[in-house]
């Protein structure tokens, strides 16, 4: 063990007037950690039913200059994306996450939309990603890094489009953590969890808020009412239909 480490830990124990914590106390602290108890959770989002949760999420996201479009099904996503890039005068070229959740989208309906799957590079103008959860409390998107969800998609391009499934909307950050823990069991956290609330901004010059400091200037949320599982079943049936 490093000497510097011992100096610091020794300094702490010295200042606290004790040696290392006794095993009993250590056990209690470990129990506290394992329990992941929630502290006080604001009632704002927790008391809401599904529909109101969605409304709150949208209202909070729009408040911080994210734009939100609601579509009924995954099959409507290509139209919405095409509409959005045209309306914002953006090139119809996107870099998108490799997440298989995006595979249920019938991109072939909009062949003029060119989609490259992978990480973002400096020249990319528009990215498209899924999210892990959407936090109603503050209109915050929770995105998680992984081999299929590279982080650069969230920060390099000027415009970031995020697909949110209605079933991903949860009340609080703690709900997001619990979902992640349930998926991963005792495994490590992903390298990065990005909580994104609106586009990039700064107020460093005379307190005036300007969007698009270094991260995306535009954050467009496409809220899909359909459940992803249903969509994938439909899509695979389409394929089967096409194969006959």
């Amino acid at each position, binding site marked *: 063990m*490093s000497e*510097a480490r011992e*100096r*610091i830990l020794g*300094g*702490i124990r010295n*200042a*606290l*007037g004790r040696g290392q*914590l006794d095993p009993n106390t250590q056990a209690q602290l470990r129990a*506290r*950690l394992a329990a*992941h*108890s929630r*502290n*006080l959770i604001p*009632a704002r989002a927790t008391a809401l039913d599904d529909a109101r949760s969605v409304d709150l999420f949208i209202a*909070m996201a729009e*408040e*911080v200059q994210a734009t939100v479009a609601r579509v009924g099904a995954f099959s409507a996503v290509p139209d919405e994306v095409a509409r959005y890039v045209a309306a914002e005068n953006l090139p119809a070229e996107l870099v998108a996450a490799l997440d298989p959740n995006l595979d249920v989208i019938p991109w072939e309906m909009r062949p003029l939309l060119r989609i490259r799957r*992978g*990480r973002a590079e*400096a020249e990319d103008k528009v990215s498209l990603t899924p999210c892990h959860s959407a936090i109603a409390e*503050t*209109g915050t998107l929770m995105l998680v890094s*992984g*081999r299929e969800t*590279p*982080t*650069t998609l*969230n*920060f390099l391009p000027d415009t970031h489009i995020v697909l949110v499934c209605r079933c991903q909307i949860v009340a*609080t*950050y*703690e709900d997001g*953590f619990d979902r992640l823990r349930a998926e991963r069991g005792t495994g*490590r*956290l992903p*390298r*990065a969890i*990005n*909580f*994104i*609330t609106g*586009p*990039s*901004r*700064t*107020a*460093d*010059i*005379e*307190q*005036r808020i*300007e969007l*698009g*400091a*270094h*991260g*995306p200037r535009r954050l467009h949320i496409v809220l899909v009412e359909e459940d992803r599982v249903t969509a994938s079943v439909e899509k695979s049936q389409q394929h089967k239909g096409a194969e006959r």
Partner: protein
Amino acid sequence: MLATSRNFEANARAGLADDNLQRALGLARTGFPLRRRLATERLPEFEELREEGRAIKDHTLAHLDFYLELYESNVVASGGKVHWAPTPQEACAAVRQICRSVGAKTVTKGKSMVAEEVGLNEFLEANGITPIETDLGEYIIQLRHEPPSHIIAPAIHLVKEQVAETFRAEHHALDPARSLSEPRQMCDEARAMLRPRFLAADVGITGANFLVAETGSSIIVTNEGNGDLTQTLPRVHIVMTSIEKVVPTLEDAATLLRLLARSATGQEFSSYTTISTGPRRPGDLDGPEQYHVILLDNGRSALLGTEFRDMLRCIRCAACLNHCPVYAAVGGHAYGWVYPGPMGAVLTPSLIGIEEAGHLPNASTFCGRCESVCPVKIPLPKMMRHWRDREFAKRLNPPVYRSALSLWAWTARRPALYHAVAELAARTLGWAGRYRGRFRSLPLANGWTAVRDMPAPEGRSFHSLWAERRK
């Protein structure tokens, strides 16, 4: 960073006379408190959350060794490395060693007050490595060779004309005839200038608002996205942080995060709050290959056993700065070091010594506004007073001041004498000011009468009048 806190009086005077600074401070002085108030009014549970935030921090500090050890083991298990740095020199040396191991030439930096504290930029430059600040405010002041004047808004002391002037002077390749009258244009210019630097950097250094013991994670809370680009693009990510930033669980972090943005800028949540755990995983397409944490002590562990312990709860939101009338009058540079405002007044003497920083805890009226807005309820005036206690015990106050105080106290303990002196003073001054009711100048009171009139006493002391009426 070199301290000029000793020169607080002259620094403050310069700040008061600086028209640009006064204009810039005027913008901040009303904006921040209003936004904070609106955000806290919107969350009914805010006061309870303050109490919870205090409890989480106190609990952690009481078991800091345990949580730091756990934190380290989780960083290591995620593929990262922790470098324990008792002193600024050791922190800088660790950074140099990491940079050299990858042959780093340029380093992008997210905002880190700990990096300021250890003088990292000067150190890197002296060792042939170029640090590039990427937070817009930090970028601006790096170009101007100035220190930050605020812990979350480093360039708050500037008006836009000054920023434009700096950009024109430093961005040589751009068209001199271009318009730079609006913040929008300057933001776009900074974005364009910094983008290639982000992409080319060998190492990215960020700070950390919190460290999570349960998972071995670091958390940064930003709005621009520069912190995320800094820690994602280069091969190496170094987290420059200090020992008191650790919290036990993600749930504890969530509580403190609810307090932080609201207290700092009045936002519900910052644009980007990122929890980072270790380097890229096998199969990841991006992310750093190496993840290092520099854990600085620099006197913080010693504070645990003192009456300044509560200061270690600080989450660096700057609410105290934003509500302090002294900060609003003189600006951050007057304080002469990394940490200005009320939190700086308490922390700076503990890090650089009371002899150097003695003015800071004295330049306060103890109005208490700072304490009333601190999200983790740090009793800032009380701790400033503790510094004054120490200064008094060490006889650091000016002798004439000590004598005057001593004389006052001596007299106050002798009521009969006190009353006689008060009556005499009331009669004398009352008589001298009997027509005009005020003095435009008064011997020995030049500090007052240079800028204000002194109202004249009514002419008798209360106690002598009362004694007469009782007869």
